[in-house]
């Protein structure tokens, strides 16, 4: 059985405001082989969400950002809401604050990841995100830098057994890439096919399971 028969998810989709655009984005995602997405700016209590296909799941994700102190507060604020929490590792300070705060789900493309951050992320079960969209939308020197960052991050993820998540950060229907293309782009910085497939199917499903209300945390025993 082919590896690509699994259910695939993209966890960092920027949804447009209009319903028509949302429907076309969702149908594009389905056409590209995704079973679900996590939307960053999904408005709660939307009444028109039932227009979307029933066999496609949309989860809520929140991008936490700002200074380290604000970032910690935001993660604590949203930790029990069941939403997927994503932090962008713009610099070492922010990345450190993000990985040190428990209950964060994904640290996306940290710029200066190191062994210390790797160890902490591993202890707090935080997945390492790879933004494949940055390879697609940049050229030349900038793309070289992004590839180098991803290569280093992959090395730490393997060393500290971190879960990996792949996203192409789509904003429109033209930004989606199918899972096979994502795996091919992942191979540019040394990611194996299995790691790429897991990063789009197994790991996102695991994060969804962790966020569900019935999940029992690691280390807790029911007597």
């Amino acid at each position, binding site marked *: 059985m082919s590896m690509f028969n699994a259910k695939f998810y993209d966890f960092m989709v920027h949804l447009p405001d209009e319903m028509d655009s949302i429907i076309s984005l969702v149908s*594009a995602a389905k*056409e*590209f082989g995704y079973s679900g997405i996590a939307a960053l700016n999904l408005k709660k209590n939307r009444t028109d969400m039932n227009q979307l296909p029933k066999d496609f799941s949309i989860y809520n994700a929140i991008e936490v950002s700002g200074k380290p102190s604000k970032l910690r507060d935001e993660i604590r604020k949203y930790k029990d809401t069941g939403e997927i929490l994503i932090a962008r590792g713009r610099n070492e300070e922010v990345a450190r604050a993000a990985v040190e705060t428990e209950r964060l789900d994904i640290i996306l493309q940290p710029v200066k990841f190191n062994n210390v951050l790797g160890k902490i992320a591993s202890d707090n079960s935080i997945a390492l995100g790879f933004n494949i969209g940055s*390879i*697609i*939308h940049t*050229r*030349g020197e900038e*793309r070289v830098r992004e590839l180098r960052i991803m290569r280093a991050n992959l090395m730490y993820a393997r060393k500290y057994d971190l879960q990996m998540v792949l996203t192409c950060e789509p904003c*429109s*229907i*033209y*930004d*989606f*890439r*199918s899972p*096979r*293309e*994502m*795996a*091919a*782009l992942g*191979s*540019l910085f040394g990611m194996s096919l299995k790691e790429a497939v897991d990063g789009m199917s197994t790991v996102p499903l695991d994060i969804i399971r962790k966020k569900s209300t019935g999940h029992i945390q690691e280390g807790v025993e029911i007597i």
Partner: protein
Amino acid sequence: MKTLPVLREKKRYIAFKIISENTINRRELTEELFDSMYSLFGDKGTSEINPALMSYDGGFGVLRCQKDRTSDTRAALACINRVGGDSISIRVLGISGTVKGAMEKLIQQSIIKETEPGKD
């Protein structure tokens, strides 16, 4: 003179579909395709991939590459996001060993699926 069969390089044909608002012409697509390959793999890598646009009708196309470089070709196709001023994305329909297979099995089936969405 023909190449000896044992020395002939094995090729693969990638069938793809263009998703774009406006129609992209063949020259624009070829330029963007090669530009993407040069940018990702350089002159040496592109020569090893040996790409050629075999067929293109404005919506669907077939791209030739070396047998062992299909993943790289997919990556180069995925990196194309803009042609001229228009945003585009390329969806790979499948890979075949012959041009005929790519045209008949992959492209025609995709067109049939689009026209009859209920039937799989």
